[in-house]
């Protein structure tokens, strides 16, 4: 069945009429307005807020799962679902760690500088890419030098103008990591696309969702340990309901845990008391 519909798909896209474009613009605007109703990064909420989103009768599976997870996780930060959620959740998670760990913060700033030089070497457009890196480094330096209170940090993370620049840094190093390890990762790119094209259209383009390859690349580029807690009906690749990256290490506490619900990531926090 799936093959049938693929064959019937038009291979080339016809030019859109002005009316089509206008309609598309209106629809996009509507979706955008709905998205903007929620903050980019929500406040830390008690984890049971998640169960409250589901009807115990009509969405019993999710309701039950949310309650089960509440035994392990204490808090959740909802992230806006605008296609940037994975990168944004990691950004916020990392910034939270760096605010508490000065040594790691300094190391992360150094890594930022290394990435800046590396991206230029990999052939990324020179000054525009350096701008994004510099912006990210300056942001971390202000945290290092105590120029931001925690509240101000979150104000910045919630301001589109600032946050987009910080996200772009993560997108660039994700793309840079894949390009730098082209031989290893090229076989995973879907047919009909080069790794270069994949990086440009799927990673470097803002508001494009991350897939498994880009998730792996960002984890390795930043050196973080990430756990993804699944809350859909499927299971994680390792057969459980959670997946640890870069690899399934035994008993290693992840730096950041993300909750995956179909098509979306939020940031969650382990219940430290229960451990």
């Amino acid at each position, binding site marked *: 069945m799936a093959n049938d519909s693929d064959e019937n798909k038009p291979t080339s896209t016809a030019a859109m009429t002005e009316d089509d474009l206008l309609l598309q613009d209106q629809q996009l605007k509507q979706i955008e307005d709905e998205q903007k109703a929620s903050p980019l990064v929500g406040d830390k909420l008690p984890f049971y807020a998640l169960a409250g989103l589901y009807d115990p009768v009509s969405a019993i599976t999710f309701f039950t799962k949310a309650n089960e997870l509440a035994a392990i996780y204490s808090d959740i930060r909802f992230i806006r679902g605008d296609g940037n959620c994975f990168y944004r959740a990691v950004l916020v998670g990392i910034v939270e760690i760096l605010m508490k760990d000065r040594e790691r913060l300094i190391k992360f700033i150094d890594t930022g500088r290394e990435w800046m030089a590396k991206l230029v070497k990999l052939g990324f*457009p020179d000054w*525009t*890419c350096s701008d*994004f890196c510099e912006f990210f480094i300056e942001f971390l330096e202000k945290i290092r030098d105590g120029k931001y209170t925690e509240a101000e940090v979150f104000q910045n993370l919630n301001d589109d*103008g600032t946050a*987009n*620049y910080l996200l*772009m840094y993560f997108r660039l190093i994700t793309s840079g990591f894949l390009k730098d390890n082209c031989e290893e990762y090229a076989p995973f790119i879907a047919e009909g696309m080069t790794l270069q094209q994949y990086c440009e259209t799927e990673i*470097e383009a803002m*508001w494009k969702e991350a897939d498994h390859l880009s998730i792996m690349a960002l984890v390795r580029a930043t050196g973080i340990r990430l756990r993804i807690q699944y809350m859909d009906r499927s299971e994680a690749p390792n057969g459980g309901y959670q997946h640890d990256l870069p690899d399934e290490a035994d008993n290693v506490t992840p730096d950041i845990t993300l909750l995956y619900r179909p098509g979306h990531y939020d940031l969650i926090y382990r219940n430290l008391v229960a451990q």
Partner: protein
Amino acid sequence: MSNIALNRLQRECKEVVTNSEISETGIMIEILNENLTEIRGHIRGPPDTPYAGGSFDLDIKIPDQYPFSPPNVKFATKIWHPNVSSQTGVICLDILKDQWAASLTLRTVLLSIQALMCTPEPKDPQDAVVAKQYMDKPQVFKSTAEFWTLKFAKGSVPVNVDYQSRVDKLKDMGVREEEAISVLSCNNWDLNRATVYIFS
């Protein structure tokens, strides 16, 4: 637009203006308002194309989300090209849509449009009529595009006397020159069909 975006945009404009682009590549920009949301681009028609010698203006509008959303760019000067609407100047170019990346700049956009003028992509047309002519009647396409360059982009090729006389005939019937050129071009310069199209 945020301050950082504004700074970047200023730098982008500078990049075009100071890069001695005008003499080398023939691209140029002109800032129309202080907050840099409206910019006028200029592209010199590339040599060895029907646009050679022409001077093409582009309207560039910078969206709030710039540089994360692409600039909105269209031809202000009328141009006969498969990937540009002959009516509205809207351009079909991947980097102005889904292939846009925040690391691109106005300079790369203008150079890409100039490259598109050299190498049309008739399989991904913006103007289906122009694209069909480009593929079916390449000679007519070439002379039509040259005629448009001369008429609308201050081109310097000698006027096509044959085409001009047909335009003049329609003008004698009270049709505006721009409309006459457009309708004749769309009808492969068949005066009868153009007349029928306009008056029926």
